[in-house]
């Protein structure tokens, strides 16, 4: 646009060119050259005020839950494992879909939900102002710096110290192929430092329902299974690596239980034969193919196919 052109056109050029409201992109050729972005620590304390908590409860129970339950068919097991526990705890889950945090928050009993926060990647959920506000409000989220500079851990530590339970995905990011990845040790460190129990959760079927790259669930009300396991308490002298291994095994056993039965899974676990949740060996396409297979439906099929 030349001199004297419409200012509105210029605003459009800037808004479109710089992706206002969306995540700014770095040209591929400049990726190695880009100055490390230092996402500012978006303030989230307001999201834990009584007003925001009331708004969140309304959004989750009146908005998100009906929406997710309409578009998918979640099944929830093991909530009884929370009995006898008190805040704060760490909920650790495998992570394959954007549905995961919503599913956990909407399936937790209210007593748990209202004092549970979510660690969310600063570079993804807090990169634009509107995403930051929405994420903080709906998920009671706080930014986690994935670059390893440690500011996220500091926030999480403070939240636990303040009595908030946290949802953490120890894989650090959504699985690219639907299978479970290595757990990072940050969650275990937190649990040991703060002496809080860890509640493992296995989510199956979320990848098939809404994998990476989709912003809305696939049609067909695909089933998703959420299985809460018994809490793990950090043992005396246990280091973060050992606790991370226990967390991983616990989630793997929940997967096995979901695929078969609790009894069979227990036997395999006692023999050390729990199938790995890391998925089959083979090329990426094969792993994605397997993970993309929807869970079998239980109960009568709907009369009308969608």
């Amino acid at each position, binding site marked *: 646009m*030349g*001199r004297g052109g419409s*200012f509105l056109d*210029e605003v459009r*050029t*800037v808004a479109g060119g710089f992706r206002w409201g969306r995540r700014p*992109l770095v*040209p591929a*050729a*400049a990726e190695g050259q880009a100055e490390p972005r230092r996402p500012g620590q978006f303030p989230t304390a307001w999201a834990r005020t009584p007003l925001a908590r009331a708004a969140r409860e309304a959004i989750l129970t009146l908005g998100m839950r009906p929406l997710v339950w309409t578009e998918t068919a979640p099944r929830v097991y093991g909530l009884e494992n929370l009995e006898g526990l008190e805040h704060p705890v760490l909920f650790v889950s495998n992570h394959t879909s954007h549905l995961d945090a919503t599913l956990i928050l909407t399936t937790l009993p209210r007593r748990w939900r209202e004092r549970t926060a979510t660690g969310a990647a600063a570079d993804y959920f807090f990169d634009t102002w509107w995403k930051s506000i929405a994420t903080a409000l709906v998920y009671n989220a706080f930014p986690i710096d994935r670059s390893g500079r440690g500011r996220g851990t500091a926030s999480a530590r403070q939240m636990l110290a303040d009595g908030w339970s946290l949802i953490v995905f120890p894989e650090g990011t959504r699985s690219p192929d639907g299978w479970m990845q290595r757990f990072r040790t940050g969650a275990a460190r937190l649990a040991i430092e703060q002496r809080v129990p860890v509640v493992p959760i296995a989510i199956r079927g979320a990848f098939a329902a809404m994998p990476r790259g989709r912003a809305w669930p696939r049609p067909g009300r695909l089933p998703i299974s959420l299985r809460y396991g018994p809490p793990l308490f950090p043992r005396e002298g246990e280091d973060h690596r050992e606790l991370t291994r226990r967390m991983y095994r616990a989630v793997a056993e929940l997967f096995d239980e979901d695929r078969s039965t609790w009894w069979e899974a227990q036997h395999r676990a006692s023999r050390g034969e729990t199938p790995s949740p890391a998925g089959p060996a083979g090329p990426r396409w094969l792993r994605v193919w397997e993970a993309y297979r929807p869970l079998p439906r239980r109960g009568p099929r709907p009369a009308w196919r969608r």
Partner: protein
Amino acid sequence: MTRPGFVLEVDERTPPLLVHEGEGFRLQRFPLGTRVVYPPDPLPGIRDLRGAIEQALLHPLGSEPLPELLRPGMRLTIAFDDISLPLPPMRTPDIRQRVIEAVLGVAARRGVEDVKLIVANSLHRRMTPREIERTVGERVFRSFFPRDLTNHDAEDPEALVEVGRTEKGEVVEINRRAAESDLLVYVNINLVAMDGGHKSVPVGLASYRSLRHHHNVETMLHSKSYMDPRPEASAIHASCMRMGKVLRDAGIRIFTIETTLNNETFPREFGFLNKREWEWSLADQAMYLAAKKANDAAPARLRREVFRRIEAPYGVTGINAGDTDLVHARTLENLHRQQLVEVQGQSDVLVVGLPYICPYNVNSIMNPILVHCLGLGYFFNLYRGKPLVRPGGVMILFHPVPWEFHQVHHPSYVDFFEEVLAETTDPATIESKYEERYATDPWYVHLYRRSYAYHGVHPFYMWYWGAHALDHLGDVIFVGGDPKACARMGYRAATTFRDALEMASDRVGRDPSITYFHCPPLALAEVR
């Protein structure tokens, strides 16, 4: 650590890129695959400038320390670069002021009384007292101006002396006071690799008789790269070196002090001009929109005034003193550290956005001939090795090319544009037919000496600077240029970049390779 310069390839993720266009700027989308040459990030400036200057003066390269060269009763002359450097002008205190104050401090302690300061303005316009004061600082100005702090006068026969001739018969005529001093200290700002070295004294303090030996079409055409000052690469530098040798052989003692600056070209308010676009924050984008809107809406005079007032917050990256050759080698290292970007191969089309300023329109107007000089003389030549664009390729420049002249500063430009270019644009014809007449015209000489006019021959030199590019390029297109002014210079004007590419297609086809030279801040392309 400072990030090096690099070459971006435009992809779908690339935002529109900033392009300068005279006293304005725009965001422009480039075709996918366009290469964009970005300069390195600014190097850190020297924090202890006073210490660095003292270190340079006390431990010079290939010379005795400055205090040992100074003694009572001697004649000391300090010459310094004029207003054409740096661009934009440096935020005060200018580095020349700091260096000159340090030199004068040593001279005072050593009991030197006969000191003169000369602006090495060559055939440029004289600097006004206010401009001189801004450059050397109030302390020096008040102590020496006007008697002992003057502009060089290249048309005063009394103030010039022929020192000798080179082995190729080139006349070496420079300022008499400088030549007859016991010590000549030259203080420069080396903004680009073309400046400095032996181009300082034999050019800055010379006369037309001397300059005509290298500021001519043949020399320009035989220079492979003006930014590579080796004799085998640049005929103009080879000539200057021969002249430097004549000065040395004649016993003229020159103590060269060269300084280099980093790439902090624009002040914080215009910080987005210094940044790579995908790193613009929301504040940068808002600043761009506000500046763009204000700039477009402002009357031309106000717009010019705002741009004139821009002062660069440069950091100083090097101060070296001593023997001219040794110092200049160190200076070039510093410059390359700040400006060099490696580029693989030439392209069919070279795109540049010309900024509002060039060496010859500081506090003045960028007339069409200066646009030609800036685009084809300087930006085209910001390379080492070979040009960014292939022989027969097309250069697309963004600039409004207004048909406008500063009547005080550029009187001979007006006539050159109206009379000479109306007849021919061929540099060789222009040189043979008109140069002598303009160079010796008494009215232009009078205006150069008594007013603030560039010398009568100066527009010719501006035209010659573009001779190499004119010889190399197949076509030159100005986006947004005044069609009449462009046509007068033999160029074509396009309304939009898309039109320009369409117009270029008859030379380079429908799918040309394109390089956008993202400048300023200054970069020097090392084309392999």
